[in-house]
Every structure is written in C-alpha cells, then in structure tokens.
C-alpha cells in the first residue's frame, strides 16, 4: 500500500510541501505515548497519533517512520510542520479517530508493525 492510497482511504489532508506520496508503507503503529512508539525499532513504520508536538517529529530521527498521520483532526503548529519538511517526512491530518483510521487501514491489508 502506498502513502497515496492511505491518504485517500483516510480522507486525509497532506501538510507541508513537496511531499513524496509514492513510498510503499509496509506496516503501521498507533499510539499517543512516545515510549510506546519507540518500541517500533524493527522495520519502517507508518505512525498514527494524536500527538502534535516537536518530539513526535524528533522520533523520526531515532526510528524509521515512513510518515505520520495526525488523527482526530489534530494539526501541528507551523514550526513542527517545518521540522517535518526539513527531514523529508510526510505528515497528514485526518478527521477520523485513531480507532477508525486503524480499522480502515487494517481492513485494507495494512498489518501491524513488529515490536
């Protein structure tokens, strides 16, 4: 599944400019707790979260995050969007909840990441 498929499925809005949506997404993880997310060290992962602060972008320096989906209509501040752009990290916002987003992606065949 590509990032473009995911944006369509979640009726998402891509934030930032010059985002590459063609990258293949092998698996996903959803959490609002940073240490939980840091358990995903084994493979490149799509992250679904309600966290919008700068530390959620900093996470992508540590582990391999393919893209971030901000759920429940959350939208990070401009400086956080700029941090993602600096890293070439695609970020997307969706009005759907974490539960609904995860369910739709799982049904479409996107598996959970290994922890």
């Amino acid at each position, binding site marked *: 599944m590509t990032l473009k498929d995911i944006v369509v499925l979640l009726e998402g809005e891509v934030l930032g400019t010059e985002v590459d949506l063609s990258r293949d997404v092998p698996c996903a993880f959803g959490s609002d*707790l940073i*240490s939980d997310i840091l358990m995903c060290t084994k493979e490149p992962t799509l992250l679904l*979260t309600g966290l919008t*602060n700068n*530390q959620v972008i*900093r996470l992508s*320096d*540590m*582990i*391999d995050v393919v893209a971030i989906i901000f759920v429940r209509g959350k939208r990070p501040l401009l400086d956080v969007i700029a941090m993602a752009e600096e890293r070439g990290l695609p970020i997307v916002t969706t009005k759907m909840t974490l539960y609904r987003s995860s369910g739709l992606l799982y049904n479409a065949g996107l598996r959970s990441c290994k922890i």
Partner: protein
Amino acid sequence: MADYWNIAPGMENALKELFSRKTPAEVTLEFVIPEKDFNNAGKGSSEVKNLLKRLGVDSDVLRRIAVASYEAEINVAAHSIGGKMTSLIYEDMIHIKFEDSGPGIADINQAMIPGFSTADDLVREFGFGAGLGLPNIQKNSDALHISSEYGKPTLVEFLIFYG
C-alpha cells in the same frame, strides 16, 4: 547508593574484555540537558546517531543506540533538575553516560517495571510518562548500569557494541 546492572545474554565476555582495555575513546561528545526543555531534548541523541551513521554503523544497531539514548535523554529532562550526556565512541562500541543533579530514584527496581511512572502533568502532555523509558533502554542495550538514591544525583550508563 543503590546500583542496578543488566548484561544482555552472551555479552559477558565482551564486557570482561572491555574492562581490561586501556585504549581511550576515539571521539567524546558532550551535551547539556536542561530541566524540562522539551524543545531541545533529543538533539544530543540525534547528533550521536548522525555521527555513527557517517562512521558506517549498521542501521539496526543505530536504531537501538538512538532509542536507548533518546529515552535516557528525555528521562534527564523530564525527571531531574538537569544534567549532561557524555558519549564515548570506540571503534567497536559506544558508551553513553547520563549524569544529573538529582533528585534521584527512590526505588530502581520499581522504576524498571514497564508502566511504572512518576511523570508529572507537563511531561505527560508531551506524550511522555508511559513508564517504558528504562525498560526500553534495557531492551536496546548490551549492558546497562544505574546508580542512584533518593535525594542524590543519578547515573545511567549503557554500552552497545557494533564491531
């Protein structure tokens, strides 16, 4: 002071060899970690990871180093009144030390239990306080040592081999 040690299975001999080694670190990096500075916390770990990446360290090991280091850096920012991080980079491994100015860990064994956290509301607002900081450091390191006591400074140090 109470001490806690964890050595990953199979790493005992590597550690023994390390203690008898006389060569100093090839590179030493130091970062100050101010109390509750979540705009900058994590930068030290990012820089260490970038340096090791340039040195050609394998990406799986690199992620383990970055996660352990980031968790420890956040711990100092979130729980202490400030401290510093010192990274000693050798040819075949990294030794990272986190030393703060207190107030110390009352019960280290309790702090090692996944889910146990003493994080305050500000820390939790940032998405920290899962109670997985120290367990994640242990999971990703080859050797971990913690030395602390309530009312005293804390030392958290770990080793990860890549040679």
